[in-house]
């Protein structure tokens, strides 16, 4: 049994003026101890999917239209609020994109870590504090800094604190939502390395959300490419990186400048992602796709298995035309 299985998950944001289809029929599977990379442009629905797993979608606008989120054999969408609270921070925890705003400015970092240990660890406050300090040391922050406030830390240090907080209760799944996007490049490498080490040592599975294919290549076992709220290509790291099929995935790889060739210009994918409040019929990518036919504009595409461990949402690829 997989650790987490998301089936046909759809999340819409409904307001009086618009109906935003943020996530549309997403299927994902994460095996125990493995890392799944979720890749896509800004607005592809990656963060919504992640928040959706923890049921942290903003209410009342955010709604689950369909789907199941099976975590350790239990559907989280059917769990009560109390059950959900015992999952959050304990079995599934999350690292957010911007460490500058993710910590409460008026509580000491030690407090903020101890809080989650005290809540789920069923231990005394003193013991929680002690364990919080140990967590800080584990992410490379000196113990005596536990009594300091977030504004006394740099961005990279804050992200370490957030990571310490997320791992404090030994979760079986860690959701990392662009954990390094807000950090500068030298710190990015440090933080990623540290996360990989901690993860390996504890056997934590991870959902790594990013738009950086380099990070995916170094950290993930499986990759899912998202576009306009759908998974359009899904497979093992090797399959996706060595044999990408979907025109959008090809475009993503094509947009990375090569170091070997002397290139004058970058090769972006032409056009913009469709407005999630007014998605096109048929394949969501057809108006930017070089291979699109009339059929693409009218027929819904299915995420179909091309080979074992490699799924693609494109009719032409499946027919072998691309």
């Amino acid at each position, binding site marked *: 049994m997989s650790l987490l299985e998301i089936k046909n998950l759809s999340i819409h944001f409904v307001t009086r003026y618009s109906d935003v289809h943020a996530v549309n029929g997403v299927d994902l599977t994460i095996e125990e101890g493995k890392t799944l990379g979720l890749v896509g442009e800004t607005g592809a629905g990656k963060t919504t999917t992640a928040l959706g797993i*923890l049921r*942290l979608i903003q209410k009342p606008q955010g709604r689950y239209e369909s789907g199941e989120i099976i975590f350790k054999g239990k559907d989280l969408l059917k769990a009560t609020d109390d059950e*959900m*609270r*015992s*999952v*959050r*921070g*304990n079995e599934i*925890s*999350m690292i*957010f994109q*911007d460490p500058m*705003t*993710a*910590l*409460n*400015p*008026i*509580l000491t970092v030690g407090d903020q870590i101890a*809080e*989650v240990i005290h*809540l*789920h660890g069923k231990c005394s406050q003193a013991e929680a504090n002690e364990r919080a300090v140990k967590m800080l040391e584990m992410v490379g922050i000196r113990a005596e800094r536990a009594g300091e*406030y977030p*504004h*006394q830390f740099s961005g990279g240090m804050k992200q370490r604190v*957030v990571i310490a*907080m997320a791992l404090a209760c030994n979760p079986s799944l860690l959701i990392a939502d662009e954990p390094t996007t807000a950090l500068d490049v030298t710190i990015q490498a440090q933080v990623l390395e540290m996360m990989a080490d901690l993860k390996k040592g504890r056997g934590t599975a991870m959902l790594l959300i990013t738009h950086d294919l380099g990070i995916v290549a170094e950290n993930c076992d499986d990759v899912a490419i998202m576009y306009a709220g759908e998974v359009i290509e899904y497979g093992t790291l090797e399959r996706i990186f060595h044999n990408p099929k979907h025109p959008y995935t090809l475009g993503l790889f094509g947009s990375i400048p090569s170091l070997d060739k002397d290139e004058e210009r970058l090769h972006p994918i032409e056009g913009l992602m469709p407005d999630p409040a007014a998605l096109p019929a048929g394949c969501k990518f057809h108006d930017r796709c070089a291979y699109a036919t009339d059929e693409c504009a009218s027929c819904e595409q299915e995420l179909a298995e091309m080979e074992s461990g490699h799924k693609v949402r494109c009719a032409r690829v499946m027919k072998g035309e691309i």
Partner: protein
Amino acid sequence: MAKYIIKRILWMIPVMLGVLIIVFTISYLTPGDPVITILGSGYTPEKYAAKAAELNLDKGYFGQLGSYIWGIVTRFDFGKSFYSNLSITGEFARRFPITAALGIFGCIIMVVLGLPLGILSAVKQYSVLDYTLTVIALVLAAMPGFVLAILGLVLFGVRLRWLPITGLDTPKSWILPLATNAMPCVAMIMRQTRTNMLEVIRQDYIRTARSKGLSERTILWKHALKNCLIPIITVTGGMVAMVMAGSIITENIFNIKGMGTYMYAAIMQRDYPIVNGCVLLIAFIVCCVNLIVDICYALIDPRIRARYASSGKKHKKKAHKEVT
């Protein structure tokens, strides 16, 4: 922190001195001779000179100012009323506790009602409760205090006869003055709390707190409330001045023998020593409230606490430079 507080207290001295000089100068320059007003027509030059000497009005501007300041600093003596010849300090001692009690209870009501209602309104945003509270708050905040006071008097005092209409003799008689004084402030605190709370509960760190599995109650009280308190404290500080000013109207409508009625009568009679004394007292209270507000900031927000500590050092350096 202690250094900062001491520094702020010392700063109150020049501020108060400035207020004192301005207030005194205004009343000095105001046209009209108080001696003539007191004596009425048909006085003799001797009588005039004697009265002027008695009131300390025969000296020049600096002489009068000097003896005024000297009296306040050494004897806490604000002089005497032109008309009744009663010591102003004595009147203050009698009347200020009444106004202070009204003000302090008013502030307590303001916080005890305004804060929770604002939080409730924010947490249940767009509910019937939220809309109801919003409408009530808007009406209360928009209505001038005297209208509210008179409406209250007519309804509860005259029609229903539930509450006495004047004085502060029985516990029941406190209800109307307190309510009319505090209600507009309750409304404003409530609105401010709602706005801040809505802003704070959308912050990333609240989402982090949720992702940790904390209960909504813990999130609200431990993570959100303190963060939304700072603007509310600022507004509350301003409200204290409003409550003081409001006391002039409330006390006159309900015929309460506090600072409000005293000051009102003095202004109508142009009894300048009293007006000056009252203004000084209000300025002093506002200074104290500002100090308390700033200390509260530091108690709540570690970032401000850090800035206070570092600004103390900077100021010292600057002051040293100025001396040398």
